[in-house]
């Protein structure tokens, strides 16, 4: 019998926050998001809020499809819900504190890398996958810094990053 469970996460895209439920059947949410062979992500029970009024629920959809390339980032409260299968066995040894910007948000969090000599340019341009995983994240809304989101993991769309800074040196 196939084991399933549901993961609720926040999906941010183009000024909207969508709280939706991903039904985990064969693979975890992060594996689905990282998968370069699929373009869409299916969510159940999606609730839409504008990011400037994140607590206002402006629409409800029983079933939603997301174009993954249009996602800015995905935030899960619980770390285990945001890790790929391989990441759940162990992350990189070196922890870096990263600050980056995507549309509407400034995101800070920890990035784990295997190499001590981290080069952001090489990392962003050559590392596999269209998303990067940041741990212990705070995402602050650019236009209203009072609105911020915390999460165990943020899966950030690499193509939407406009500024990438490392604060640990």
């Amino acid at each position, binding site marked *: 019998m196939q084991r399933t469970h549901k993961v609720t996460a926040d999906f941010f895209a183009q000024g909207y926050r969508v709280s939706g*439920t991903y039904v985990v059947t064969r693979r975890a949410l992060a594996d689905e998001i990282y998968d370069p062979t699929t373009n869409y992500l299916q969510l159940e029970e999606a609730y839409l809020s504008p990011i400037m009024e994140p607590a206002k*629920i402006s629409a409800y959809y029983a079933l939603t499809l997301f174009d993954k390339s249009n996602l800015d980032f995905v935030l899960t409260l619980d770390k285990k819900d945001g890790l790929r299968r391989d990441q759940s066995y162990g992350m990189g040894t070196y922890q870096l504190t990263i600050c980056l910007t995507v549309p509407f948000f400034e995101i800070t969090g920890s990035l784990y890398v295997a190499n001590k000599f981290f080069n952001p340019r090489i990392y962003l341009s050559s590392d596999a996958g269209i998303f990067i995983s940041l741990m212990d994240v705070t995402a602050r809304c650019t236009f209203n810094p009072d609105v911020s989101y915390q999460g165990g993991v943020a899966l950030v769309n690499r193509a939407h990053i406009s500024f990438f800074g490392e604060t640990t040196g």
Partner: protein
Amino acid sequence: MAKVLIIDDNYDMLSMLKMILERQGKHEVTACTDGQEGLAAAYKAPPDVALVDVMMPGLSGYDVVKQLRSNPRTEKIGIIILTARGQSVDRDAAMAAGADEHMTKPANIEELLKHIDTILERDKAKTPPAGTMILPVFSIKGGVGVTTLAINLATVLQQIASTVLVDLAPTIGQCAFFLGMRAEKHWGQYLENRTTPVDSLVQKHATGLQTLLAPPLPGQHSWPNTDATTTMLAQLTATARFVVVDMPPLLDSTAQAVLTQAHRILLVSGDDALAIQVMRATLQTLQEQKDRLIVVRNATGPGPRPPAEAVQKALRIPLAVDIAYDPAQVTVAAKGLPLAAVQPKTPLVIGVKRIAQLLLTR
């Protein structure tokens, strides 16, 4: 045993919570799968506590909470928002809608049962004994002697009946400093764990004065929100007749909640032009509370003062008490003692006693 209403569109969650609350909590549970149905059930038989999901098709959990709060039959029930939306903005929205507590799914059952018990206990405590008074001492302008007056007023009232002095400073508490105390227990610990009984955090000063101090270090705790402050004060009024609150110079939603809850508000003005201007603005802001205001002028330094008549004319309100500069306060404060406990006949203490008299006779 309490009557609990659960409103959640997720049938599995609903059945699981119902079973657990009935078996473990021994509560009588009504379960509804949408907001409208939940509202109808609540209006028909108001529960003691409602557990409300946020993300439901149709009426959202926030709408349900707002409607429960706006109906006289259900406005006072305990409400816990139980949602997968676990961000601080979601917590703020839940509190703004009128919830008592916000919990993130998947819920820790022990924690949920504790929250239900806390709400039930708090509701019992919400009915204060007759004659209980919450007395904030307040000024939007700092440096006018609010803490000194609060400490001495609490000391005078302590001689009449059980009194607690609460230091609500959001950054670093001044009462502990003035009283030479270490804030080993403080309200920050209540914010960390909302199931902590507030009276267990009350510390006794050498003079017998009971104090609920502010956290000793700035930045470690946020300023308590409206709900936390209301609950703290409600719990304290269950054990003390007078709760004197040393208010910070702020007029945000938390401060307003304290002022709304207050039986009398002691507004403190200084002598300088800025203090008087600030007091005028404060009086305009607190128009709705004007019947409960006691306006006091307090001199915090030596030297000439503008005549009381001129100040009253500027403020367009009579000064209830006018306190002259008291040099004894400086020497006694350095020893960590309230002036009222050691020198009962100095100008400051005489003024404070006059305030106490007004509080008791008005």
